[in-house]
């Protein structure tokens, strides 16, 4: 039922403590939002779940994060396998400067153990993100020629072709216009059927619109975690209430 459990997790950038003893259980096939003012550690927490923080100098962690029952901060874990299982979509769309086809097939190409039919898989995942009709005749074109919205869809397709368990979104709409934002939100909602989705957002309406659960963070601490509805209508903590009513942040 919970496929992601964060236990007593703390993270330091050198000696700056960016996450303070976080405890959180995230339900599978569900959308969980993380909200909080800028600099509170949302991205840091999200990036701990696929250990992409490992690439940043000076990062040091305490506690553990269990994905599908395995502590991913165990030294023996296969980090590449973890990242195949926990996809990530970034704030600014970051397609590789390669063709659309090469972008989507990237993950399978570097690790095709089950000899999946890559062409079929590319088509499937482009259909899943509603991009197939737009690009089916130009799969060999450079992905950087797409619009920002299309690029972000492509990045989502690139992640789901791996059939991950969890997909992490770090403010996926913050570089898009309102209409594109709405359409990407609709797409994320459809992903809930198959994937556990965790989304960081600055936009409280967005969190309210698409998530079932919401975590509110402040200065590296998890203040409150509850049903989204509860957080937005009847929060337990004073700080949460201040934040959602717009008194700060």
């Amino acid at each position: 039922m919970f496929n992601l459990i964060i236990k007593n997790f703390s993270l330091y950038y050198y000696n700056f403590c960016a996450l303070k003893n976080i405890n959180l259980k995230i339900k599978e096939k569900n959308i969980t939002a993380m909200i909080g003012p800028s600099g509170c550690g949302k991205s840091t927490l999200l990036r701990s779940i696929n250990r992409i923080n490992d690439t940043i100098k000076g990062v040091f962690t305490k506690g553990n994060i269990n994905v599908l029952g395995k502590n991913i901060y165990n030294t023996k874990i296969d980090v590449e396998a973890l990242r195949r299982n926990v996809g990530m979509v970034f704030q600014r769309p970051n397609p590789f400067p390669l063709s659309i086809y090469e972008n989507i097939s990237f993950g399978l190409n570097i690790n095709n153990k089950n000899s999946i039919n890559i062409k079929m898989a590319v088509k499937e995942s482009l259909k899943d993100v509603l991009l197939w009709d737009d690009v089916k005749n130009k799969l060999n074109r450079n992905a950087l020629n797409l619009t920002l919205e299309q690029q972000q869809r492509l990045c989502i397709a690139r992640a789901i072709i791996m059939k991950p368990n969890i997909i992490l979104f770090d403010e996926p709409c913050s570089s898009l216009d309102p209409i594109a934002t709405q359409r990407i939100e609709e797409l994320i909602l459809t992903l809930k059927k198959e994937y556990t989705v965790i989304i960081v957002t600055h936009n409280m309406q967005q969190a309210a619109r698409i998530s079932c659960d919401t975590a509110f963070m402040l200065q590296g601490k998890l203040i409150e975690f509850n049903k989204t509805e509860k957080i937005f209508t009847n929060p337990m903590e004073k700080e949460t209430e201040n934040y959602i009513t717009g008194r700060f942040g």
Partner: protein
Amino acid sequence: MCGMLSVIFVILIFGFLFVESFTFLKNFGIFRFITGKHWFPASNPPSFGILPLIIGSILITFGACIIAIPISIMSALFISEIAPENLRDFLKFLIELMAAIPSVIIGFIGMIILVPFIKKTFNLSTGLTAFSGSIVLAFMSMPTMISISEDAIHSVPWKYKEGAIALGATKWQTIRKVVLKAAMPGIIAAIMLGIGRIIGETMAVMMVTGNASNIPKTIFVPVRTMTATIAAEMGETVRGSMHYRSLFAIGLILFLITFIINLIADLFLRKIRR
């Protein structure tokens, strides 16, 4: 403005070379000049065939590329992606230093160290060979190739690497499949500039290749290049003589070759950028 000026200069140089060599090419025949197998400008009657010189130049250039290109790309990758920070700074400094060594000095070092070494290792009658020339030229072109490739690799945005890592790519896969591809236009430019330096080089080559104007059958025999021929013989010719003009004709051919290479490089770069 600056572009206009350089176009004018190029046209002027071309015009000058053309005027100086025109009577020679007309009298001797351009086809005979390019395909002639013997360069005996001082014998009677003289023979002005530059095929051996062209082949010598191509052979040395080609050999130098085969040595310099892979080493340069690997070094650039090592410096920008693998080496720890202080080592990186040191290596970059070293490469700048290498780039500043005048070619005569590299040629001289090649002559006193490399040439005897080649002679001994390959058991040849002389170490003054095309191969020695290729090695020396590879050394001279590598600083340019490395530092420009390194710039290109270094400026690949972090977000591409992050994207690859997030899809489960290892560091090496990220480098091979994303970083190298993203940096490719810059790397090609680096290689082209390196080749430019190789083709234009004269002194170092003269010192280590033996200067024999025969058509080489292997890379282990003495050869002579077009640039070396001009440099070696210009001082001995009588102004206005057939021999004198033939050297300008070589210059003209060399000019056309470099022009075409630059043109191809430019087209290629533009195509990749798109």
